[in-house]
């Protein structure tokens, strides 16, 4: 098992993600600087971490979506490699056009940082199969622009195709239809605002994030 975590200037969860994946799965994790035009070979999972890539200049994730490494990430996704964008990483995937929708300023204009209960809306994805039928998991969120938006037609399609993976039990930021995480049509690209990388040991209050990493790497 092998995973890579992309590091953009302004990423701040890259080490958290690397440690979370290593400790929960035993996978070898390489951190890859965003200026690289190629990724290590034989990857089973690529993570775009949380943070404030490029200081959120212009729009969250906009500049990072144009980093050289993103072409390699898109190519890998095209080949079926699992890609997970967490928080800022979700914003980058939307800006890169690899996932539909966009993340707006939170409805209450506040940065929200709190443990959060999530409904597993689709437990059949390679990221969620490990929940083994559990309908509710707990992670944490920490974002100011996590208000998921897409037009009604896109939202209907996401729901109809089972692409909504996580939903907030209590919507913290105004996200359309309480969506917390979605997958691409092929199911190998995940974007989510909650942090599985902050929920991988009992001391952190939840180990539900570890199960997500175990799930996706077990399916590799």
């Amino acid at each position, binding site marked *: 098992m092998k995973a890579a975590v992309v590091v953009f200037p302004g990423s701040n969860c890259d080490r958290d993600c690397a440690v979370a994946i290593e400790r929960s799965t035993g996978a070898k994790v390489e951190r890859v600087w965003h200026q690289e035009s190629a990724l290590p070979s034989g990857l089973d999972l690529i993570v775009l971490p949380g943070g404030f890539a490029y200081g959120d200049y*212009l*729009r969250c994730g*906009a500049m990072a979506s*144009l980093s050289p490494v993103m072409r390699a990430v898109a190519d890998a996704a095209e080949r079926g490699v699992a890609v997970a964008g967490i928080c800022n990483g979700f914003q980058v995937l*939307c*800006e890169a056009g690899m996932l*539909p*929708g*966009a993340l*707006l*300023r*939170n*409805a*209450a*204009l506040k940065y929200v940082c709190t443990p959060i209960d999530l409904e597993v809306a689709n437990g059949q994805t390679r990221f969620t199969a490990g929940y083994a039928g559990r309908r509710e998991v707990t992670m944490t969120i920490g974002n100011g622009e996590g208000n998921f*938006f*897409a*037009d009604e037609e896109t939202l209907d399609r996401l729901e109809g195709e089972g692409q909504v993976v996580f939903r907030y039990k209590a919507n913290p930021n*105004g996200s359309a239809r309480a969506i917390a995480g979605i997958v691409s049509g092929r199911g190998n690209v995940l974007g989510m605002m909650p942090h599985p990388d902050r929920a991988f040991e009992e001391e952190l209050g939840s180990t539900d994030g570890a199960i997500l990493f175990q799930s996706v790497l077990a399916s590799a």
Partner: protein
Amino acid sequence: MKAKVEVFLKPGVLDVQGKAIEGALHGLGFGAVSGVRVGKTIEFELDGADKAKAENEVKAMCDRLLANTVIEGYRVDVG
């Protein structure tokens, strides 16, 4: 040539900053205010003399980077 791009959230997208500013203006006694929208302006110089061509080029810049057309619309002024 000078190019000026204005980017705003689309009409159907809730502009929470605009709403907050509107509320604050009402609080200051400016009760006649409604429909506040917050956007951004991006200005730059552009080489070339063909205005129509420049306008198309700036629109392409908007579609690819300056605006996120999922949530934002834009106005381009070249001259």
